[in-house]
């Protein structure tokens, strides 16, 4: 009974998703508590790279392609996400994430400049799919704790952990 309305909902949601330009992004003033001064250029590039990582995250979990994570994720986050992709593959499912809104705040910049932590109050839809069949679609509001570390050319996500709002 639920599946058909669900399919209908997904069928409706899909074009809406495609039409949607981008998730809305709101960046709040950093709350660093004196750890290290944050240049505005650094803050901008961290936010840009983090939002970019969502693209990689979405594509990798939708296509079950761990290689797509390489540019944006590193360390624990990379390992955990690729393990999830392997498990999805084993179960024959893939997940389609659509991020709707981000409210970001940088909360820590380590004194050595080698890590930045931000909190993202994110709203996203998670669609669990088996082939082209939608098994579930769930809108989620979560608080993501994200730690990024610098690589040669960009900031890469090292910790990516959601908690309930």
């Amino acid at each position, binding site marked *: *009974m*639920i*599946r058909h309305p669900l399919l209908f909902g997904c069928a409706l949601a899909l074009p809406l998703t495609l039409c949607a330009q981008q998730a809305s992004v709101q960046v709040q003033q950093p709350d660093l*508590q004196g*750890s290290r001064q944050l240049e505005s250029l650094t803050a901008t590039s961290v936010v840009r790279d983090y939002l970019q990582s969502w693209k990689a*995250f979405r594509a990798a*979990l939708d296509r079950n392609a761990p290689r797509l994570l390489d540019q944006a994720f590193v360390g*624990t986050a990379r390992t*955990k*996400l690729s*393990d*999830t992709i392997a*498990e*999805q593959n084993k*179960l024959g*499912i893939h*997940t389609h*994430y659509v991020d709707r809104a981000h409210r970001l705040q940088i*909360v*820590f910049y*380590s*004194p*050595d400049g*080698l*890590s930045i*932590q931000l*909190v993202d109050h994110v709203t996203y839809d*998670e669609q*669990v799919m088996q082939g082209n069949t939608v*098994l*579930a*679609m*769930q809108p*989620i509001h*979560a608080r993501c*704790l994200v*730690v990024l570390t610098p690589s040669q050319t960009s900031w890469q996500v090292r*910790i*990516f*952990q*959601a*908690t*309930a709002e």
Partner: protein
Amino acid sequence: MSLVRCLLLAGSALVASPFLLAQSLSMNLPARVAAGSAFSVPTSGSGPGTLTIVGPGQALRRNVQLGSAVALAAGVLYNAGEYVAILSDGSDSQIGLFEVTAAQQPSTLSFLAEPSRLPVDLQNGISGTVYLFDVYHNLIVSPMPVSFDLSASSGPSQTRTVTTRYGVGWTRMNSAPKEGSAHFVAHAGDVSSTRVIDEVPGDPCNLSMTATPDGVKAKLQTAPVRDCSGNPVPDGTVVTFTASYNGMQSTVDVPLKKDIAQVEMPVPHGATISVASGVVAGNQIRWSGQ
């Protein structure tokens, strides 16, 4: 006519009752589960079904007998995050949402200590940052105390205790006035991590040399080279000797060995010999051959 209709309705309800019962698929998800802990999900309905749990951190599936509780053993679901649970009996499904939170007991800590090497006697020159993780490498976001301890080979040790915020704690320390290796230790609960910080001498101070004749050459030798705190400058540091005479010049870069640099070079009488290391200049000698 109405009696017939009532009978028909009653008969239909009787026939349809098993199906109506079968459609009442549901599960009772906990709102929050600690990472790696065992928990169960009571379900309603009948017959076989599947429980699929999917989130960015993990994806797993269990075959279930609907109507009984699904038990997930300890260590099965261990990555913190938001998860979608889908209970399905093949024709129908029920969706739920729950959270896996990090365990409260720190198991590992990522300790970033910088720099690995710095000059002696530098205020706030050393920084330490600790990220706390549970046994499944989930960031422990609840506040926890972390202590930092910097002990040099000589002099008193420095200790600071901070409380983590969003799983991270940090501090700054001063380097010791004497050169040597310092141990920088971070503690959280029963876990600790150690880093070695090399506290190295600064630029040479009061660089001086002597020149003595050695056959046709002059033997140039520095006094033991020390920084302004009296620490010996490390061996291998380059000292440059320069002899200038009649518009000509001879130079040689010599690495320090056992605190001194020495070289034999041909120096004509009347030459001016100077010594330097990096941007620090030492004394000058006018060479008379004696």
